[in-house]
């Protein structure tokens, strides 16, 4: 009997094929739009989070106490060898980058700007976050005389700097003396991290050590990449316990805006999800209600013949579920296609690049794709289909066969 009831439900679904097809397309269309938006939101936040972690904070960063507060070499770490050794020997840590950052004035013949000179080890940065992938023009090389530099894209734009141009950076060293270094631009970098894009000039770490006066063991930041994101808190806790005098921070503590943005996107996605599911629910509800009202006589006859309410409930519920699941299947196909495209080719917003990059967004937004987009949507559509038949089933329960037979 079960098979016959399902067969009746299936064929009833296609008695008004255009109407059923429209609802299925509506579900598929809304689902595709919803998942594309969700993927883009997630992709945007993921890109920002990953580029920030890769280009600056790592999962965990260690600074001299009060360095972040005063941004002065007076608070830099004078001895980092023990810290580096501890980090490198920790099996949870996969890469360590030592940096020396100092704020000063970058000048060309025509323009001057506040900037951060950051001394880096190119090999270490490559292991740490593939720095070369952030290069948009030129190649990062320090040159024979170690006076090459890479400049953040917005800073280069502000100072009209291009690859091959020269600039002078002046700052106070750890002894308090003002000194300058002459550099030429070998590369322009763009990371989506405003601190780097708007202010940073990368130079060779040895050059930075001598320029800052911090010597071979000093640094302003030791950043760590963990093998697993889940190890972040534990690694930070270990370092805090081992080096209580240092300022150990996770990326979430260093960039709370990113965490807020993640949360905001989660809320946006939840709201979009709820709206789309409401639309799905109303769509299926409308079709099921009309379908049952149209077939009142048929249901009345079935009841008169002895069909139980349970069998009628099964038939109607199956019709609604079939509508929802067919919509989901088509939607999953469309969504996967759309997300695949957005993951590989992104949403090209280069027309608005200036505005987006000023806020740290990439001009081409790449989507993220996660299994839970599809599983959550599936369960929500099934739930919406089940809820949508409650009122039609109630009407069916109240149906008296005699009324329809006599009508």
């Amino acid at each position: 009997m079960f098979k016959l009831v399902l067969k009746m439900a299936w064929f009833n679904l296609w008695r008004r094929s255009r109407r059923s097809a429209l609802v299925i397309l509506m579900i598929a269309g809304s689902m595709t739009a919803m998942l594309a938006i969700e993927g883009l939101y997630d992709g945007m936040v993921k890109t920002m989070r990953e580029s920030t972690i890769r280009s600056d904070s790592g999962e965990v960063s260690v600074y001299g106490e009060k360095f972040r507060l005063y941004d002065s070499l007076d608070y830099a770490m004078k001895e980092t060898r023990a810290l580096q050794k501890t980090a490198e020997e920790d099996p949870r840590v996969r890469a360590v980058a030592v940096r020396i950052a100092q704020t000063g004035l970058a000048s060309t013949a025509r323009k001057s700007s506040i900037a951060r000179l950051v001394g880096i080890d190119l090999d270490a940065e490559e292991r740490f976050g593939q720095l070369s992938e952030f290069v948009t023009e030129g190649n990062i090389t320090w040159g024979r005389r170690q006076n090459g530099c890479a400049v953040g894209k917005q800073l280069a734009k502000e100072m009209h700097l291009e690859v091959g141009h020269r600039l002078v950076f002046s700052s106070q060293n750890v002894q308090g003396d003002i000194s300058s270094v002459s550099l030429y631009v070998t590369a322009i970098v763009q990371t989506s991290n405003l601190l780097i894009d708007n202010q940073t000039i990368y130079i060779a770490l040895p050059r930075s050590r001598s320029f800052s006066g911090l010597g071979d063991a000093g640094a302003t930041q030791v950043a760590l990449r963990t093998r697993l994101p889940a190890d972040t808190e534990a690694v930070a806790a270990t370092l805090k316990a081992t080096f209580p005098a240092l300022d150990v921070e996770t990326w979430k503590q260093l960039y709370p805006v990113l965490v807020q943005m993640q949360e905001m996107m989660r809320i946006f996605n939840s709201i979009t999800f709820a709206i789309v599911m409401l639309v799905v629910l109303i769509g299926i509800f409308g079709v099921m209600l009309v379908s049952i009202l149209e077939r009142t006589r048929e249901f009345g006859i079935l009841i008169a013949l002895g069909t139980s309410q349970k069998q009628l409930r099964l038939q109607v519920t199956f019709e609604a579920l079939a509508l929802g699941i067919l919509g989901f299947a088509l939607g999953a196909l469309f969504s996967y296609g759309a997300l695949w495209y957005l993951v590989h080719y992104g949403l090209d917003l280069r027309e608005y690049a200036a505005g987006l990059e000023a806020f740290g967004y990439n001009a081409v937004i790449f989507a993220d794709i996660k299994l839970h987009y599809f599983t959550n949507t599936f369960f929500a559509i099934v739930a919406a289909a089940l809820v949508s038949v409650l009122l039609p089933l109630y009407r069916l329960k109240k149906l008296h066969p005699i009324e329809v037979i006599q009508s």
Partner: protein
Amino acid sequence: MIELAKVNKYFFKDTAREVHALRDIDLVIDSGEYGVITGPSGCGKTTLLNAIGALDAIDSGSIRIDGTETSGLDETARAKLRLERIGFVFQAYNLVPVLNVRENIGFIMKLRGFSPDAIEARVAEVAKMLEIGDKLDAMPTNLSGGQQQRVAVARAVAAKPKLILADEPTANLDSKNSEHLMAMMKQLNEVEKITILFSSHDDYVVDQARRIIKLVDGTVVR
């Protein structure tokens, strides 16, 4: 055996529009009877048929089918009774449009849980008897009115109910199809020993019945 005692049925009871549709009906219909309920329009034929078929509740009195009192049953129990003991043939055929003839005929048997082999054999048997054996794979929309009504009769008969109630079964058929249908139903009554009760104003149907129950204003007059 069907026994009705002091059956009363009202519509819009205790309102200005109150209609006393059945008045103190006392009636006994023996097993295997081939009877017709007749009378003028609005006399209560369909109401009486619906009451006997446990489709509608009565306001007072008693209806017993093979000793089972049906008047006090709730909707679920009435549905079970209809499924197991009564076959219905409606004026408008009322076949399930998404099922083919074979599935329509076997529908009640499926509801009652007969095995697929038993259903297949019985469907073939009644379809042959009603001369629709070559239409088993057709959909109801592809059949003539007469053929659809024969499918409806086959559906009612297939599960071997004790009683078949047919409400104006020839109302939508031409005379040739009406005669054909009545001949087949009479044959079913004789071969299958099923009690058949019609409601009809069709003189031909009335003439064919072995028992005539005449209603006037909700009262049995003959």
